[in-house]
């Protein structure tokens, strides 16, 4: 049972990041490999504002998200926009390069030491043999609220209709007057804000180290590939599934004989994808083909 709760916590975090990414991929057809670094920047900024400058936590979080949005916008202008119209695959290489630059900057400014936004004892609640802290509960709730709000906007508002129109037939949307170019930038920054939220989440629940970046990115992409590219809810679902598998892998006393070392947790995402590919090469809810 504790495993399930842990999975819920880890999954919520991954779902935020994967969700934002799925929308970007659906609209732009672009993979952003600097995503993990963007998440960390959100987390580190909040840490610095709260722990070093002693600003109130709420304000630190908001400013952390704003900083994440800003850096994501810069990412878009430098590593994506000049390239993705030319060829869809170029941003894959440029965002790798950009991720290295961000890694270097993070290391220079924040060093390799783990940083925790809320270090020290948390308010732990125990019931039915399950331990969960107040902070973790709030984080799961916050994620659900964010995802549900996004779902509402996406499916019920005029903005959401425009986003879906651009995904489904960009030229038709343009010829009706929908500003597709602006939407590209907006969605990309939104995915960065979601990632920053994920980073803040990690900083509160655990601690931040620069080495977390790539595993986060890989996990988010594993969820998208498993869910079928361009399928937002598939990606979110599989973010939770992968989190559950990771918890199972290292939490269960296999055959009563051994525990899998925690260092292998990352490998779960990879193995999961390979298994999915064996069964369904287009992902579980994959559409047959995107229009262009």
């Amino acid at each position: 049972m504790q495993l399930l709760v842990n999975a819920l916590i880890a999954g919520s975090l991954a779902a935020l990041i994967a969700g934002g990414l799925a929308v970007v991929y659906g609209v732009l057809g672009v993979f952003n490999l600097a995503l993990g670094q963007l998440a960390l920047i959100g987390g580190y900024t909040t840490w610095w504002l709260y722990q070093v400058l002693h600003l109130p936590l709420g304000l630190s979080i908001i400013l952390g998200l704003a900083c994440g949005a800003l850096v994501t916008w810069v990412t878009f202008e430098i590593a994506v926009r000049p390239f993705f119209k030319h060829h869809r695959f170029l941003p894959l290489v440029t965002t790798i390069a950009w991720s290295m630059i961000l890694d270097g900057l993070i290391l220079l400014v924040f060093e390799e030491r783990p940083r925790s936004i809320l270090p020290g004892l948390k308010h732990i609640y125990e019931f039915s043999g399950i331990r969960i802290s107040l902070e973790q509960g709030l984080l799961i709730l916050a994620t659900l609220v964010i995802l549900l709000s996004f779902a509402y906007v996406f499916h019920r508002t005029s903005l959401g209709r425009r986003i879906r129109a651009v995904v489904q037939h960009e030229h038709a949307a343009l010829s009706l007057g929908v500003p597709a170019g602006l939407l590209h930038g907006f969605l990309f920054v939104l995915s960065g804000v979601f990632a920053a939220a994920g980073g803040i989440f990690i900083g509160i629940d655990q601690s931040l180290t620069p080495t977390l970046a790539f595993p986060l990115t890989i996990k988010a992409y594993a969820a998208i590939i498993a869910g079928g590219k361009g399928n937002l809810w598939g990606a979110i679902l599989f973010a939770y599934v992968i989190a559950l598998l990771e918890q199972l892998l290292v939490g269960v006393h296999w055959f009563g004989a051994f525990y899998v070392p925690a260092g292998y947790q990352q490998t779960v995402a990879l193995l999961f994808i390979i298994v999915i590919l064996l069964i369904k090469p287009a992902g579980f809810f994959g559409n047959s083909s995107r229009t262009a």
Partner: protein
Amino acid sequence: MSILRISHLSLSLGGQQILDGINFNVEEGEVIGVIGPNGSGKTTLFNVLSGFLKPSHGTIHFCDKDITSYSASERARLGIGRVFQNFGIFRDMTLEENVLVALEALPKERRKALGNIKEVVKGTLAMVGLSQFAKRKAGSLSGGQMRLLEIARTLKAEKQLFLLDEPTAGVSPKMTSQIADLISELKREKKTVLIVEHDLPFISKICDRVIVLDVGKIVLTGKPQEVKQSKELQEIYFGANPAD
């Protein structure tokens, strides 16, 4: 009044001259057919007029405004509408949502002037006999129905100039006559229409004027009957020695 003026429009891509010095004017309310063999540049011309491609030379004036450097969505907001060869429909959205997107993209004042948006959506679907499918996903429609929806949606979005790219392609004969009726409706509302087509009888029936493109140039223009009987047209389509 010339609603559209095209001057010396040229486009070369990858070393190839796709459009070569295109010049023509379109009067308000005219229905003009654009015909020519495959590869003559018809769809490219529409892509340039829509704003998806930038010309290498030349200018485009719409309602006396130079729109050559305008983006596609800017041109749409000015009143240029496009119907696509490959069905510009949002397949995963319902028919209602498809119309809503078009109306919501209008500039604020014009949206307000429309009044109750939901009523306008209903009226649009009723105009083309698709009311009973309002809540269905647009991808479930037949080709002809999609085409009707696209034209109706563009009409209700208050466009003045309609660029119809092969509106009868992939459409049954029954639907073709419905589309012809819809285009006549456009004419009655004094809309200006450019149509790319291969269906010459269809063009003859509804167009006031025909422009013939070949290898990126205008080689012939005139009334449908004149163009149909011209020798040049025979040569372009069938070669120098057409079979009897």
